[in-house]
């Protein structure tokens, strides 16, 4: 079963207390954790894909304008409480396993090595074979 795990980061404090404000050692520990965790998922044969996204400052929203031409406006994140910081798609045995993976990610080390306990949204990917009708 495939699941998308979406890592949400708090908008408030992103600039004031975000990762850029941590001591270098803590940043390194965080990055090492993420890299190591992805490697672990891959070695378990569970990783379909994972990406970190560029910061919310650069986020833009596109709508189709006249004649379908892209109409670009500033991102929705100025007022939002949280923004999408990155995602994983995993292919694992069951929902419990997806929850376990999400919990590991949630506890990624933050400032001073304290677990961040980030909210991870878990959504099943529509991939089940249809039943006989």
């Amino acid at each position, binding site marked *: *079963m*495939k699941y998308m795990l979406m890592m949400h980061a708090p908008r408030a404090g992103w600039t004031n207390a975000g990762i850029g404000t941590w001591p270098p050692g803590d940043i390194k520990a965080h990055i090492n954790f993420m890299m190591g965790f992805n490697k672990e998922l*891959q*070695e*378990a*044969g*569970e*990783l*379909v*894909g994972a990406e970190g996204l560029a910061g919310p400052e650069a986020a833009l929203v596109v709508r189709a304008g006249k004649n379908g031409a892209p109409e670009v406006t500033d991102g929705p994140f100025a007022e939002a409480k949280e923004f999408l910081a990155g995602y994983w798609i995993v*292919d694992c*045995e069951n929902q419990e396993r997806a929850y376990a993976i999400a919990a590991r990610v949630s506890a990624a080390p933050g400032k001073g090595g304290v677990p961040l306990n980030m909210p991870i949204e878990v959504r*099943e*990917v*529509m*991939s*089940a*074979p*249809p*039943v*006989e*009708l």
Partner: protein
Amino acid sequence: MTAACLDANGVNLLRELAPQVLGAVIRRFRDFSTAEDAVQEALLAAALQWPKDGVPDNPRGWLIQVAARRMTDHLRTELARRRREAVVLLQTPPDEQMAPPPDFEIGADHDDTLILLFMCCHPALTRPSAIALTLRAVGGLTTAEIANAFLVPETTMAQRISRAKQRIKSSGVPFRMPSDDERAERLDAVLHVLYLLFNEGYASSVGPALQRSDLSNEAIRLARAVHNVLPNDAEVTGLLALMLLTDARRAARTGPNSELIPLTEQDRTLWDQRAISEGVGLVTSALSRGAVGTYQLQAAIAAVHDEAARAEETDWPQILALYGLLKRMSDNPMVTLNHAIAVAMVNGPPAGLSLLEALDADERLAGHHRLDAVRAHLLEMAGDHEGAVAGYLRAAARTTSIPERNYLTTKAARLANDGRSG
């Protein structure tokens, strides 16, 4: 000069022999990964030499011999490099320390394809791992093909397969036919893996359609191989029949945009009559043996559907009787759901609906979209369109299959529309 190529017969022959050769080599050398490499090399050698020199009289023996020779070479290199002779010698019984003699061959009663299947469907493996390993080792699909079919990166699939092999190795289960008392349980696992494999591929519109339907074909091919080795096993026959009878409807099951077409609305002239008659023949012979099992019953139900030239001609009382038997044999709420549909078809929707009420309390079905979908269907039959629309929408919100969600949403919209215009 162009290089000679194996013709289609040659390719099929290699495909059929590959798992037998792999099985023989693993049995001899007990090393899954190295054996796989050695067999790949032997297959390559065959693909290069046979078109020039002709297919040898005993192609299987030829391949086993070449693979065993490669295997011995591999092991020698390994030994020399790691200087582990002493350790390996201690671990290897004296009769296995020699390179295999040229007449190294296995009696016809030994079917290594089946042993290999038994190994791949090992209890220590999760079902997805067992499926991947089976496709790789027994089906001979490349890792890239398997990854493609399951829409995961090749590296991820490669890891899944190599972990599965390691798990089998560390479980210490020897490469041999399981003992009689283990065998029935193992065969159940094999049949279940093949059944899941078939379902993965069956008319699913997730991912590249071609690769997915290949999975069903592969499942049928493997079920056929098991049936050839165990022709008197009624459940093996039943599973093969079930696959054939279900797959026979493939062309009618989806529309031009991969939309699902329910059984009652399918163009039955598109059904594959050859597959149907083979399936009916198989399930009839299986049932006559007396050891009735769940695959045979499901096949029998599929056969009753397939034998109706028009949906209205479906023999629902017979289907109801078969579901009654199936319900007694398996504690699966999905069976109870289908039983309720049959009851509604024979005794009217209220009878079916009252059976569904009992299922509301079943934890395994709580919140499951199929319960809502079936209830909606029966409410529609009963003329309660408002209730049906609500049920279809609830089911649509909960399914994890895109074609099914599309079907349910459209169904709800049509019914709601009819209500307004009528």
